């Protein structure tokens, strides 16, 4: 999985540079996010603006990462396109994840 990373204060913003988060890449995708967390990133914003497709395995990897970061950390999402946002709505995961339009909005919410 390829990411573009930047840090804003204590928030790591990781932009997913793959267009599809599907079953074939779900395991390495989750591992990459867990590695961020293990390496001390407690506030993480995942920019999904380049992602055009996510399946239930990709969603599962995100849920696993949210559980890994725990309730004292933050994992926020931003930039979800319509097809990706629809998947979150269908599975009610839009009630579980904090989702924002832009990285700046997500960073501001995480910094509070």
């Amino acid at each position: 999985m390829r990411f573009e990373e930047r840090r804003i204060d204590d928030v790591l913003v990781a932009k997913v540079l793959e267009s599809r988060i599907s079953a074939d890449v779900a395991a390495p995708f989750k591992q990459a996010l867990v590695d961020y967390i293990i390496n001390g990133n407690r506030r993480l914003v995942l920019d999904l603006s380049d992602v055009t497709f996510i399946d239930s395995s990709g969603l599962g990897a995100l849920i696993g990462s949210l559980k890994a970061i725990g309730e004292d950390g933050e994992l926020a999402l931003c930039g979800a396109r319509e097809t990706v946002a629809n998947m979150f709505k269908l599975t009610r995961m839009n009630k579980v994840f904090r989702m924002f339009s832009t990285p700046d909005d997500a960073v501001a919410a995480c910094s509070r």
Partner: protein
Amino acid sequence: MKSLGLGIESDLGNVNLVAVATNRVCRELGLDESRAGQIELCVAEAATNAIRHAYQGQPGHLVEVRLSASHEELQVEVIDRGTPMPLKHQQALLKGSKPFDVPPADLRSLAEGGRGLQIIFELMDKVSYVSGEANNRLIMTKRLPANSTMS
């Protein structure tokens, strides 16, 4: 009636190929982006299940996707020749099992997996599963809007 058959080897890396092809065919048939995306997702979930469960993740087996469209509906079949889906999962597919209710307040009890069949159940208008001597066929049907271009 228009129809098309596609086939991939049972490797998860191939699922995107049939999923993307299905989406493109749906667009060509006049479906809007949202519906084409829903059908793409269902094909991806069904093909992934066939590889993981019917073939236990083993490579070298065939997963077929057959599309056929009439004026009224698009039918998508995902076909394998592996182990049939357990009855419990067939029931989940045909009748729904775990509606996507309000998630639990406790994050730790949130499941990471097991949403694929329910996604298919929710997005498709009709689903059936036929396990015969030759193969297993998951048949998904979506009604088409009046303005699509089937002939």
